[in-house]
């Protein structure tokens, strides 16, 4: 269901592009020109023998393989397996990190207790811990969701903590002068003031959820886009492998676009 939702958004924007005036078309062209150039090079380079067509098939062949995979439904199976894991880890991370981050940011004592361990973990690459996760949680879904959760946790936590600690002290002073209780101060001033920075954390976490997902799926999985890419490589289905890579790029792009537009919506009050 979630995958359907993500797909629905580019369709809408693509539709509106057609009815937009000339200037928007020009802008769209400016944004697309380098990508188009890249596509042309990809198509031409293997054909004229600049690169080995076996290792880098022309774009058209990759696209043909891609449409074939979409038509047969193979790609969708992997796509939905991936997105389920990534979404689950991401949501769990949000549910843990935001309340915890708010606490750490607001109570100096909690901050003092947690900041050494935060410093330690934020500087540990999530993937370095993948073997540990597999050892403890096995090679099933749990370890994959767990590693995504772990990777998403840090950008979320750090941004939430920063957000709370950087709330304009004058706003706090002003609210205090109106005799707000500390609970009221927290949910009427601290939380709304923190929302834009927290959203930056959500966007960063979204990106890393995809990055870590693919790597995790390449190590011991039976489905998912990461598995699909390494599987096709082993079986020398090179066009299919590139099709998988394109799917991942698009997935990352879409997720980022979605989160950016959400971020904008919640930060409307900020001066541009």
């Amino acid at each position: 269901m979630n995958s359907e939702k993500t797909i629905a958004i580019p369709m809408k924007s693509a539709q509106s592009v057609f009815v937009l005036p000339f200037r928007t078309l020009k802008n769209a062209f400016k944004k697309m020109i380098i990508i188009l150039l890249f596509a042309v090079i990809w198509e031409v380079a293997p054909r004229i023998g600049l690169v080995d067509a076996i290792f880098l098939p022309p774009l058209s062949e990759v696209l043909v393989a891609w449409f074939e995979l979409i038509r047969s439904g193979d790609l969708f199976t992997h796509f939905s397996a991936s997105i389920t894991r990534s979404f689950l880890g991401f949501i769990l991370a949000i549910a843990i990190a935001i309340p915890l981050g708010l606490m750490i940011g607001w109570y100096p004592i909690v901050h003092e207790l947690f900041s050494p361990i935060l410093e330690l973990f934020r500087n540990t690459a999530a993937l370095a811990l993948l073997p540990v996760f597999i050892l403890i949680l096995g090679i099933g879904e749990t370890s994959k969701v767990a590693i995504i959760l772990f990777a998403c946790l840090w950008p979320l936590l750090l941004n939430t903590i920063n957000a709370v600690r950087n709330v304009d002290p004058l706003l706090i002073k002003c609210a205090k002068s109106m005799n707000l209780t500390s609970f009221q101060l927290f949910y009427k001033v601290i939380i709304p003031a923190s929302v834009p920075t927290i959203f930056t954390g959500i966007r960063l976490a979204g990106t890393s959820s995809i990055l870590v997902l693919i790597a995790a799926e390449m190590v011991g999985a039976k489905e998912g886009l990461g598995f699909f890419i390494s599987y096709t490589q082993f079986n020398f289905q090179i066009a299919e492998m590139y099709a998988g890579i394109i799917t991942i790029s698009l997935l990352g792009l879409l997720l980022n676009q979605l989160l950016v537009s959400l971020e904008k919506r919640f930060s409307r009050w900020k001066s541009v």
Partner: protein
Amino acid sequence: MSEKIKFDGVSKVFRLRDSQKKNATREFTAVKDLNFTVKDGEFLTVVGPSGCGKSTLLDMLGGLIKPTTGRVLLNGTPIEGPGLERGVVFQQYALFPWKTALANIEFGLEAKKVPKKERQEKAQEYLALVGLSEFAYRYPHELSGGMKQRVAIARSLAYDPEVLLMDEPFAALDAQTRESLQEELLQIWEKTKKTIVFITHGIDEAVYLGQRVAVMTSRPGTLKGMIDISFDSRTEEGDLRSTPEFTVARHQVWTLLSEEVNKTRYKETLTV
């Protein structure tokens, strides 16, 4: 007229980290032995050289800090903390950026637990009082400095405090906006009969607005003199600033203050 506010032998000493010695603190006396009263419905301006503890004085009135010795009384009882019978207006407006002008004005009413419908009516009423009805749904970043300060004043007035505490509210505004806001403030004061304590570093502003001007000494801040400004009605006089009475009063304040400013300058050259 009865006594509204009384400073009874008030001193405030802060502990600061010593800049020379590590882990050492030194004492810093912000204000010392303040004794004065403000009458009910009076407009008192406080003027003094920079760093003389004007803001400390106001923070004590707002209940945000407590005096080290002495008592600050409101209606005969010592101030124990912040309260909605006092409204504070800050130099940097302190509007909540995620709330529209109208919602900002409602903020204090929310704290006072006024029902929603009444809250909106009140907020509209006070927005009209400061002449910003058309800007009800604008966010602070869409308003000019003068408009922001009008909203801030309306916010403080809306919850109907007995005393309005203003901390250099017009210092960040350009000269023309400042003059029109001074005039509006006087009209509001005549209309609402609030007691106002207004802190400024501008002599003209102090004399123009205040029924009495309290002149403070440089660090540690004590009361140097209290000057009565006897105009009948400030709002009905055409160009008050050009009358001989204004010039005389201005000169009185200037004489008291210039001694202090010179002292501060001398002290600063010593510490450098």
